């Protein structure tokens, strides 16, 4: 039997993670406020992408409609700010965002998981466009195309009246966001490594056989969908505090497409892939928008190149490279889907 390193805390991977966390703790000292805030955007999308990938990479369902759950979290927070200012503190907002995205993903998920592949993709997309339409139509509540402004909430007893947003973001909020991010990673890793996570992968790989070994495929797809939506909503809420404003375009399916893109960019077959993809995409998009008015062309072209040449994404490419260097056997054939 192989030696089980699982119990050893001092595994190389864990050491690397701890080192990264230490670096991240000191990041505000190295980065300019501008870049730090950009990085924070990246972190919120990392949470979103991790949530998305639970459904895509691990369960095998591609949704072009995750913007809907992002919207649930984001608008949930924004509407709290507008209509329930007395409740506008982080301890209520985060559970609130999770709750709203839970409801939405439960309802939409129930409709969607009865179908597969193409039908599923269309339905998920269409439902998010429904949200988009509703946000516009009910403009007296949602602010319509202008959206809603979101001021800095109270946090754990602290108020930030008079504090300017960049100051808030490079101080308390950064550490708060970082802790939520780490918590998300730990939770997601737990989900993915649990028997439930393994069952999801079985469903992804061979739906028929999964059913034949007693796995309730539709039910577990729904659970995955809901968990996925909740993480995405959490990311949406956290994003809102950085952005200071929500607008309807976060529920447009092209925005959902960006979530898919960043997951693919980082690599959907590796746990850390979406994190890497989200952060790189955030910087990439800003750079593209800054250097040309045809930034959609750049994003579109890079997506096509990615799909054609590097479907396993950056993390996947790096992994293949290190595998070759280490002389390990590669799994046979194209995109290895084994999630570690």
């Amino acid at each position, binding site marked *: 039997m192989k030696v089980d390193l699982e119990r050893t805390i001092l595994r190389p991977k864990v050491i690397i993670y701890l080192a990264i966390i230490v670096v991240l703790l000191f990041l505000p000292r190295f980065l300019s406020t501008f870049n730090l805030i950009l990085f924070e955007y990246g972190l919120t999308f990392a949470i979103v992408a991790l949530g998305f990938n639970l459904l895509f990479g691990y369960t095998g369902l591609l949704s072009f409609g995750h913007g809907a759950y992002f919207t649930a979290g984001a608008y949930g927070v924004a509407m709290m700010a507008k209509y329930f200012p007395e409740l506008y503190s982080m301890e209520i907002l985060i559970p609130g965002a999770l709750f709203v995205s839970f409801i939405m993903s439960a309802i939409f998920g129930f409709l969607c998981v009865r179908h597969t592949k193409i039908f599923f993709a269309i339905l998920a997309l269409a439902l998010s466009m429904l949200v988009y339409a509703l946000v516009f139509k009910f403009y007296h509540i949602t602010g319509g195309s202008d959206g809603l402004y979101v001021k800095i909430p109270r946090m754990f007893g602290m108020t930030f009246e008079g504090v300017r947003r960049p100051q808030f973001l490079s101080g308390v909020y950064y550490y708060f966001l970082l802790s939520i991010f780490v918590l998300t990673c730990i939770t997601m890793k737990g989900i993915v490594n*649990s028997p*439930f996570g393994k069952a999801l992968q079985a469903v992804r*790989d061979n739906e028929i*056989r999964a059913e034949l*070994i007693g796995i*309730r495929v539709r039910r577990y797809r729904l659970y995955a969908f809901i968990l996925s939506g909740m993480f995405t909503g959490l990311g949406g809420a956290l994003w809102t505090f950085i952005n200071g404003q929500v607008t309807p375009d976060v529920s447009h399916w092209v925005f959902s497409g960006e979530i898919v893109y960043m997951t693919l960019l980082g690599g959907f077959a590796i746990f850390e892939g979406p994190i890497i993809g989200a952060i790189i995409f955030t910087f990439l998009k800003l750079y593209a928008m800054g250097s040309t008015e045809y930034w959609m062309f750049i994003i579109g072209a890079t997506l096509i190149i990615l799909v054609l040449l590097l479907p396993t994404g950056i993390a996947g490419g790096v992994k293949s490279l290190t595998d070759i260097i280490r002389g390990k056997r590669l799994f046979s054939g194209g995109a290895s889907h*084994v999630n570690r």
Partner: protein
Amino acid sequence: MLTVDHLKKYFGDVKAVDDVSLEIKGGEIVSLVGSNGAGKTTLVNLISGYLMPDSGRIVFDDSNITYASMYKRIKMGIGRSFQIMSLFDNATVLDNVRIPLFSRYEMIRKGLLPADRYTDIKNEAFDILDLFSISDKDYLSPKDLSEGDGKVLDVAIAFSLKSKLLLLDEPTSGVATGDKFNVMDTIVSALRNENISAIVIEHDMDIVADYSDRVLAMHEGKIIAEGKPNEIMQDRNVRSILFGIGEQNVSGN
């Protein structure tokens, strides 16, 4: 433990299963033979719950399961493997067996710890792989297995559900002739070890002769002969239908 009573399944004019009755005792390995289209796979589908019969009864372990859902039958102990290998290609060989175990022990909803922490299940998975002689391949991908090992794994997956009755659809098809006996040796010894019954659809008569307790021969939806392997081999009806040997066949020409 399994009783099938006057089972019928028609697809329009085609009488896929035409008034079939049979009985399987605990620990028996019964081969199901017949030419293509005789109704073997349909019969297996009816027993596993993939199809529902038009009339007749199926009783398993004293329960009437004629119209029970596939899910229910799996939980009751009827497992199935496939003619075309149906594995979890992106999981390790160990996980291919571990996941059915998780399902069987209802851990998928309740298990909150990382899968590896459940050492009992992990050990049981290793034991199963050992039983099927593929434990040295535990962390490989199923894509890297030989055809024979792959088929063995396919059966192991069904086995992991602690089925009392396994329905095996051509377990040696696609396996190189030299390996067929090894594969069957492995599978049958695992089954005997746990006293599991099996219905095996098989075309290779040598395999049938060596490994079956009993043989059922089907033709055009009916069971035309039943008995010990050598009896069936000598039966003239069976021989003429399966091998085209002899002057007489069922339609009487």
